[in-house]
């Protein structure tokens, strides 16, 4: 048996995992296990910015940020958590700067900020410059900076090790089993605590901004082992993905003045969000795009619209809206500004679309983007095993995989990066504290047995269906039926289909029979996880008979605070599923109708 002993193991080396590692390793002996090299985590794809009420360019307050977060989340946000996040955000963004993060600067040398969807001046309701940014590669810089700091602190990494099983003994966490991709061997990590930071599972859908590696392994394993997931029906579709490819075009484009245009050349967001228009929150815009397309106003009647950032167009609308710079002069944008502030976006468009955003509008469509739900945790990253807030001793989680819940029914742009660093840090600190209080639990007997069985069952079929076929079928049905708009009928259909695919999965055949770097095998295992999550996502969506944030039911178009102002927990029990509910923590902000 390949055996390692640590105080704690962190799974995932994205923003959340690395932040946790930095803090936990100060007081405990920590290993970071990641299926990718850390710098390849999808945090590096985040573009637009990290929200914090620094007020570097105009008046701002963390309370405003908290309010925007709560409103953006359609009041499903736990307000105590939102307060913590928005308050801590300010200090943490400064801390990131101190670590060396190369933020863009204002003329007086401070961190530069830009407007972002749903972030407002609470008095005027106008967009506020809150997203601290490093060009359009803020996530890349966060990931790099945190990894750099981990190297400085000599954090121990196990790169290209895939988490496969959580070990429990005496009712507490006792470590994990991970698959070493290179050798094909299982490794047992014996530890007092485990921290999940494995990111999202956007690969459930056909059109997605998410990486191939985002397959929800950890939540699926937890689900199989009898732990609940929270608010799984809430998955965000980002309005501006590159047509057919799903590659994200950051909201920062609209922050810089870009506008959405339909097939008739209209700036249609005027209709749907008269006050903040193209910077309304994501669910609102994604639905608006779908409605435009449904009503035949896609470009040339097809299923996409334009995102237009051509200087002449932007300047026309900026003038129309009377936008000004901090010094009062009218705000304008030039081709050079676009190259400077959105270099990667310009590059994506040119590479993948052959479209130059400076002279042509970009064809876009909503793309599966972000999991609001996930592993339930409290504000210190402790995993909760039921709706009564009972923690799992030694279990921690943060980042996209976790549900604190600060994003409620719809996450605001820039808030994920905040979530990663704030709760990654809090979780890391809490975990180190926990490790110093408890003894190492004994290893369960045959710790590798479960993972071994999983692998063996995948290798059992000498022939059969390639995993890719099933995966494609799943992604398509999830896109069509469990996407931006949902109905009872669509969801029921989807559920049937997913269950059928799950059955067929028994016949999946791994054609690479080797041990070393068998990514064929891993892809099959990942599909198993995705099917699991597809099923609970669909079930949870069927279950919630209202429309709220990212969950829009055509057959229940209204938000229903009387029955549904609550988080849903879902358990898998054999072939059945069980729901339970947890009230939303309301603080200063009472639920109101959400208009932008």
């Amino acid at each position, binding site marked *: 048996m390949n055996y390692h002993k640590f105080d704690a193991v962190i799974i995932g080396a994205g923003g959340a995992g690395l932040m946790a590692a930095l803090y936990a390793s100060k007081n405990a002996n920590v290993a970071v296990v990641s299926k*990718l*090299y850390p*710098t*390849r*985590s*999808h945090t*590096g*794809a985040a573009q637009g910015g990290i929200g914090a009420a620094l007020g570097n360019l105009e008046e701002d307050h963390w309370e405003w940020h908290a309010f925007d977060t709560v409103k953006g989340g359609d009041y499903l946000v736990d307000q105590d958590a939102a307060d913590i996040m928005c308050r801590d955000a300010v*200090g943490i963004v*400064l801390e990131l*700067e*101190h*670590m*060396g993060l*190369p*933020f*863009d*600067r*204002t*003329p*007086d*040398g*401070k*961190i530069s900020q830009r407007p972002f969807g749903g972030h407002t001046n609470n008095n005027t309701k106008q967009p506020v410059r809150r997203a601290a940014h*490093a*060009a359009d*590669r803020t996530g*890349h*810089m966060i990931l*790099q900076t945190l990894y*750099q*700091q981990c*190297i*400085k602190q000599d954090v121990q990494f196990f790169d290209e090790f895939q988490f496969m099983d959580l070990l429990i003994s005496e009712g507490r966490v006792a470590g994990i089993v991970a698959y070493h991709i*290179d050798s094909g061997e299982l490794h047992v990590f014996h530890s007092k605590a485990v921290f999940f930071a494995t990111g999202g599972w956007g690969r459930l859908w056909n059109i997605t901004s998410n*990486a*191939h*590696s985002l397959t929800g392994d950890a939540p699926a394993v937890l689900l199989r082992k009898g732990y609940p997931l929270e608010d799984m029906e809430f998955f965000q579709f980002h309005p501006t993905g590159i047509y057919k*490819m799903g*590659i994200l075009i950051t909201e920062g484009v609209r922050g810089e003045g870009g506008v959405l245009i339909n097939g008739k050349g209209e700036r249609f967001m005027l209709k749907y969000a008269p006050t903040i228009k193209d910077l309304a929150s994501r669910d609102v815009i994604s639905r608006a795009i779908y409605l435009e397309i449904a009503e035949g106003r896609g470009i040339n009647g097809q299923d996409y619209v334009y995102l237009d950032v051509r200087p002449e167009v932007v300047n026309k609308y900026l003038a129309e809206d009377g936008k000004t710079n901090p010094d009062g002069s009218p705000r304008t944008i030039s081709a050079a500004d676009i190259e400077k502030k959105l270099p*990667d976006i310009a*590059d*994506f468009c040119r*590479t*993948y679309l052959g479209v130059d955003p400076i002279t042509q509008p970009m064809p876009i469509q909503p793309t599966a983007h972000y999991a609001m739900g996930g592993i339930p945790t409290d504000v210190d990253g402790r995993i909760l095993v039921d709706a009564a807030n009972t923690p799992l001793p030694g279990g921690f989680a943060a980042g996209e995989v976790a549900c604190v819940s600060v994003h409620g029914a719809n996450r605001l742009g820039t808030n994920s990066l905040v979530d990663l660093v704030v709760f990654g840090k809090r979780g890391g600190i809490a975990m180190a504290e926990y490790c110093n209080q408890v003894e190492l639990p004994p290893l369960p007997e045959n710790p590798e047995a479960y993972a071994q069985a999983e692998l063996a069952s995948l290798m059992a079929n000498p022939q059969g269906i*390639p*995993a*890719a*076929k099933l995966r494609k079928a799943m992604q398509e049905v999830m896109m069509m039926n469990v996407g931006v708009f949902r109905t009872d009928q669509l969801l029921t259909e989807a559920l049937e289909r997913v269950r059928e695919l799950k059955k067929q999965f028994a016949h999946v055949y*791994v*054609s*690479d*029979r*080797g*041990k*070393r*770097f*068998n*990514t*064929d095998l891993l892809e099959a295992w990942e599909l198993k996880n995705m099917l699991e999550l597809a099923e609970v996502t669909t079930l949870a969506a069927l279950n919630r008979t209202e429309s709220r944030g990212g969950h829009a039911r055509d057959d229940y178009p209204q938000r229903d605070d009387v029955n549904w102002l609550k988080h849903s927990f879902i358990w898998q029990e054999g072939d059945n599923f069980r729901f339970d509910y947890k009230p939303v923590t309301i603080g200063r902000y009472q639920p109101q109708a959400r208009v932008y």
Partner: protein
Amino acid sequence: MRVTLRIKRFNPERDEKQHWEEHEVDVEPNDQLLDALNKVKWYDDGSLTYRRSCAHGVCGSDAMVVNGRNRLACKVLMKDLGKKVTVEPIRGLPVIKDMVVDMEPFFARYRAVKPYLINDNEPPADRERLQSIEDRERFDDTTKCILCACCTTSCPSFWANGEYVGPAAIVQAHRFIFDSRDMAVHERLEIMNDTMGVWRCRTVFNCVECCPREIDITRAIGEVKKAILNGGVGG
């Protein structure tokens, strides 16, 4: 459109040596090479192995030699590659399986240049360290690096002598040397001044030609050389 992928295969459990194998696939002109490889892997031969993650050129997983030149498979479109496409692992690092190479020597070089901000002064309590727009601009280019290893593994100097620290590591060093907040310039220049440091760069420009982030690597290396000769970055 139907294309032939000519792929250099190696399976450590079966093969003694690398060998070529051909696969035909149907692709859209706008498909990425990564899509084409996926088609082979998913529907034809599951043992075809390569790394990938983000699928849009930001994670740096899928560097390979495509038609003789280093590229990211996800950042090159089939229509630009012709009817017959050759795919090989990047050069100068030990091959593990098919396109997968041992990245450890590469990351070891990265770690060797102390890729983190060094500034022992207490930062201001509740605000950022100030930096002018110009000072920030000074090192902007080299912050873009995604550590894909395209550059280092296209560099003849690195092929010739694997001890060379390589362009990627110099890019990382540059990012800190020219950051006005960093206090370890001299220590960093000392590292770069090694026999196997910047002086091994022969201004071949292969690195620049293939950097998917379009970093002016040779320029960055040149600036580091100059800083060493001038004994610092001032002026």
